[in-house]
């Protein structure tokens, strides 16, 4: 049984005459992680703000857990939790009091609240500073507390807007672990990120947002297939060597600026050996030799047009 947690169609939003979202369509099945990937200014936060009822869309429909965000706003608010880019915590309260505030507002009974709060403090590695004012917390601690506050009351659909931006590696791993645990419990996660690694690790489906439009959508594996294939990159010390190599290696692509050559290859030992043999045979000196297999970075760059040097040279 799969139900749709988030269904968006034809979503548009403009600020003045600047179009921020230009017709977004997406669907997120319940109990999965959906990652919206895009560079700064692509419209990720605006998307989250509209989907969580903070902003009104100019056009399009959005249904969250079956509720229309325009007409059933209260029902939507009851099922979603949001952790934004900037920690939404109360600095003049302690960590514990922040969580208690959430428990009160969500009408969690006092015995249950105590259990939930203790559990969350442990889980987020915040038990020790729980009685300290949040104004003394580091940025990473605030982000963790922010997510912990979002989890009070067990929201079914959680929006995480760049949850790990600016976190240290340890905190980032805690965040990732918690996202996995939440999904295992059946929660739907809508995650925005600039980090492909993060989307690759966590997401069931990824959509790439660029300048207000989705330029690609699919599983991480599907998207990787859209990237340029794996290749070997050779760099030379002078143009003569580059010319010679380009004549010998069929199907290679030159990058004159970098004195580099890009040779299609499956990256296997056999084909690499034969490539090296060819270079040897023609006495071509190679300054640098590297094997590239596509990752989401390649997809991202290829799709958003903010291409790397290799992409531009093609």
């Amino acid at each position, binding site marked *: 049984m799969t139900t749709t947690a988030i269904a968006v169609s034809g979503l548009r939003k403009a600020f003045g005459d600047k179009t921020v979202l230009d017709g977004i369509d997406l669907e997120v099945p319940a109990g999965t992680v959906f990652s919206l990937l895009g560079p700064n200014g692509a419209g990720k936060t605006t998307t989250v*703000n509209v989907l*969580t*009822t*903070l*902003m009104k869309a100019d056009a399009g429909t959005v249904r969250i857990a079956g509720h229309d965000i325009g007409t059933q706003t*209260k029902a939507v*608010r*009851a099922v*979603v939790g*949001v952790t*934004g880019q*900037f*920690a*939404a*915590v*109360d*600095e*003049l*309260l302690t960590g514990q*009091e922040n969580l208690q*505030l959430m428990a*009160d*507002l*969500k*009408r969690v009974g006092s015995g249950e609240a105590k259990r939930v709060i203790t559990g969350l403090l442990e889980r987020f590695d915040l038990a020790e500073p729980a009685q300290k*004012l949040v104004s003394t917390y580091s940025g990473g601690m605030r982000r963790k507390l*922010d997510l912990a*506050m979002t989890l009070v009351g067990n929201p079914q659909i959680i929006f995480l807007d760049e949850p790990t931006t600016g976190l240290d590696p340890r905190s980032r791993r805690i965040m990732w672990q918690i996202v996995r645990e939440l999904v295992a419990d059946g929660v739907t996660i809508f995650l925005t990120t600039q980090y492909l690694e993060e989307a690759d690790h966590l997401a069931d489906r990824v959509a790439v947002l660029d300048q207000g439009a989705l330029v690609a959508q699919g599983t991480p594996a599907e998207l990787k297939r859209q990237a340029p294939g794996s290749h070997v990159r050779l760099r030379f010390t002078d143009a003569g060597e580059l010319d010679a190599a380009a004549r010998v290696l069929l199907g290679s692509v030159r990058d004159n600026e970098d004195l580099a050559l890009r040779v299609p290859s499956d990256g296997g030992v056999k084909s690499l050996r034969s490539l090296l043999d060819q270079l040897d045979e023609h006495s071509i000196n190679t300054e640098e030799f590297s094997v590239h297999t596509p990752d989401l970075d390649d997809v991202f760059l290829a799709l958003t047009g903010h291409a790397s040097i290799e992409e531009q040279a093609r």
Partner: protein
Amino acid sequence: MNTDSVIMLRRNFKHTVRNPTAVFNAVIFPVVLMLMFVYVIGRAFNVGVKYIDYSTPGMIVLAICYGLSATALAVNSDMTKGIINRFKVMDISRSAVLNAQVAATMLRSLIAIAAILGVGFALGFRSSANLGDWLGAIGIILAVSFAASWLTVALGLFAKTPESAGMALVPLILLPFLSSAIVPVAKMGTGIRQFAEYQPFTPIIESIRGLLSGAPSGGYALAALAWCVGITLVGYLWSLSTFKKRA
């Protein structure tokens, strides 16, 4: 009782306790001002009655206004920090945050008013008001505090930065000085006198003064209440519309 507003009030209460300097400021400054006027400057004034009896009602209103700056800052910092977005996304009453700020402000000003009255009595303030007069005076004081709090919440919401929120309140804090709080309007120069006569704080202070001296004036009381209702409405509606606009 566990409504959203009460939960939010508890939050503001903790803020107040955590920030004792704000309370200290709100109490100490009006008291110092009162001592200064009664002991140092007031002796030179001839207001027809004992100066402490004349000035206490004005000091009460000064204390209300002076305590507002903490509210403007608190409202503004709520809006400029992320916490407000969290509240807005939750299924809670839209105005709970604002109601709580108003309630917390009124509680803080009641503490300051109690201090002013305490110091006033210690300095020889005597009232010939009966119980009804006292209740009337308290009613007007609460109405003024309520109205000023809503206006302050609106200003705090409207200001883009904490600095401008503080600046926006300066007129409200200065306005009582240009009323009959310190000296009777009749003793002021032309121009300033007309201004003082028609600004809200003169009827407000005169009505409290009348009630506390046991000689209530219906006209002033009516004008005071009308001003309070008007200011409350403007503050409330302005607050709600600004709150909705600022995400």
